């Protein structure tokens, strides 16, 4: 099989050479498949086994899910029955209302407190975790023992949940927002240490080599080779945690560590559903606003980078 191609020259007139060329690649390859299979058996044979393994793993995981649902008494019937109850609560929730204006201002004040707890807690944690992110990264910390203890230390701190930290700090500094800030700071310190170190471990080694080649010290390599690469990732993580902590700070409030959570539990306990819906709406709006601001900041750090379509 072959194709005729009309050749022509420059603008000074066609050279009018009609050349015979080999056929397109596709038909030729299909004709010669047997020989190609003989020459590269691994490429053709390798995949069925891999595919079988993939299918087996997916089926295994699905089986595990079914088993877990059965073992944990998962029941659609109970969900169905509960849905009715949920709908009833929803009707009790409209319209959202605080009852009195005085209480509304109280809610607003405590919401501000929640945002403040989350902001201070998150950013203190980020500042404290910053050096540990590098100490816990394998490509920066070549000293094995120190690396091991940094990582396990971060694991331990992270292993204790924010809520437990809140209960601990309440006993130390008493009730109020200060305990909330310390609780968020403690647990996020562990999380940031881990996330930062993983971002550092994923950096491209070439710029670091470039800085090293000029005689730059270890600190200079981190400052100029690694930091510019990881800063956008760090910023994204910190801003997400700020937003997420604003949500979880409501839970901290439940145990008495300050913020809007206290009013939320109180409203639920006294069945004031209109107040509950107002509080939830206020939290939703706050989180949406934080998300808007943080995405602006994130793009400012990353710089406008678009993927062309």
């Amino acid at each position: 099989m072959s194709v005729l191609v009309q050749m022509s020259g420059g603008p000074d007139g066609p050279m009018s050479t009609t050349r015979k060329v080999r056929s397109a690649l596709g038909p030729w390859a299909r004709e010669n498949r047997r020989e190609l299979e003989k020459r590269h058996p691994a490429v053709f044979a390798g995949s069925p086994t891999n595919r079988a393994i993939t299918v087996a793993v997916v089926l295994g995981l699905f089986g595990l899910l079914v088993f877990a649902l059965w073992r944990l008494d998962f029941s659609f019937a109970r969900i169905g029955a509960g849905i009715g109850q949920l709908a009833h609560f929803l009707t009790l929730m409209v319209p959202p209302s605080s009852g009195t204006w005085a209480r509304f201002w109280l809610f607003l004040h405590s919401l501000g407190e929640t945002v403040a707890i989350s902001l201070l807690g998150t950013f203190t944690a980020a500042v404290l975790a910053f050096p540990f992110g590098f100490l816990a990264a394998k490509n920066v910390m070549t000293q094995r023992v120190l690396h091991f203890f940094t990582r396990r230390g971060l694991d331990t701190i992270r292993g204790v949940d924010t809520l437990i930290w809140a209960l601990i700090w309440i006993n130390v500094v008493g009730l109020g927002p200060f305990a909330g800030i310390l609780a968020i700071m403690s647990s996020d310190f562990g999380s940031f240490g881990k996330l930062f170190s993983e971002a550092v471990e994923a950096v491209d080694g070439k710029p670091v080599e470039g800085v090293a080649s000029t005689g730059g010290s270890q600190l200079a390599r981190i400052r100029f080779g690694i930091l510019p690469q990881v800063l956008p990732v760090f910023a994204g993580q910190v801003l997400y945690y700020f937003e997420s902590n604003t949500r979880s700070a409501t839970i901290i409030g439940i145990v008495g560590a300050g913020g809007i959570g206290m009013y939320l539990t109180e409203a639920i306990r006294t069945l004031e559903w209109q107040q509950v819906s107002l509080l939830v709406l206020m939290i939703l709006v706050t989180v949406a606003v934080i998300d808007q601001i943080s995405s602006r900041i994130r793009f400012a750090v990353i710089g406008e980078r678009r993927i062309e379509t």
Partner: protein
Amino acid sequence: MLTIERLTRRFGDFVAVDSVDLEIPTGQMVGVIGRSGAGKSTLLRMIDRLVEPSEGRIVYESREITALKGASLRHWRRDCAMVFQQFALVDRLDVLTNVMMGRLDHMPEWRSLLKLWTADDKAIALSALELFDIANLAANRAGSLSGGQQQRVAIARALVQEPRVILADEPIASLDPRNTKVVMDALLRVNRDFGITVLTNLHSIDLAKRYCDRLIGMKAGKIVFDGAPRGLTDAVVTDLYGLEAADVIEIPAAGDPTPDEIRAAWDAERAREPV
């Protein structure tokens, strides 16, 4: 036949490509030359619709390329392959999978997303790799290959698209001289053996003259030369490249200083002791 009419692209106030008219018959090997910033890359990327034209149209065999959208745009990109200066391979995937990217628009999407390549598709990919002597690297990660090997993988990927046109944007700018020859030979082979139209940007006038049937010279977004390589005189090169002309082509003149004289003059000017 690829026809370009009054094609223009502006970036803010800057006109990268300025009302270009061009006709390229099927099967030609065309080199686009000119200094950096002359609009060569933008022209090529507009043909593949990676950059949207501001004005003008592109027509390929009665297909209006500038009006394509969605699936028909993807079909055009399949028919018009692109080879990049920095290879544009997925480093973390193996060579075979990278070449299979060229088959994406030939198979149903569910099949490609599950990586269920047919034996025929594998045969096509391997025959392309064999053509450029890199079939033994099929299982290697693309990122672990040398520059010359990666560019050959990229050309194999372009070839398995079974395209009508291949656009190559400075395909050899990041390669050493030996690999430059290997890659240019590969492009020529694609053109001669399969009758695929090749349109390539080149920095080196020498290579452009040696490999191409036809040269197009661009300056400030406009075409200022279009003809056979023998028509490209030193005067035209000087016009195209201005003061940089001496860098892209050897024009030895009788009065030119020797390297020794240049160094001596340099040192004398700064009254510097030789170190």
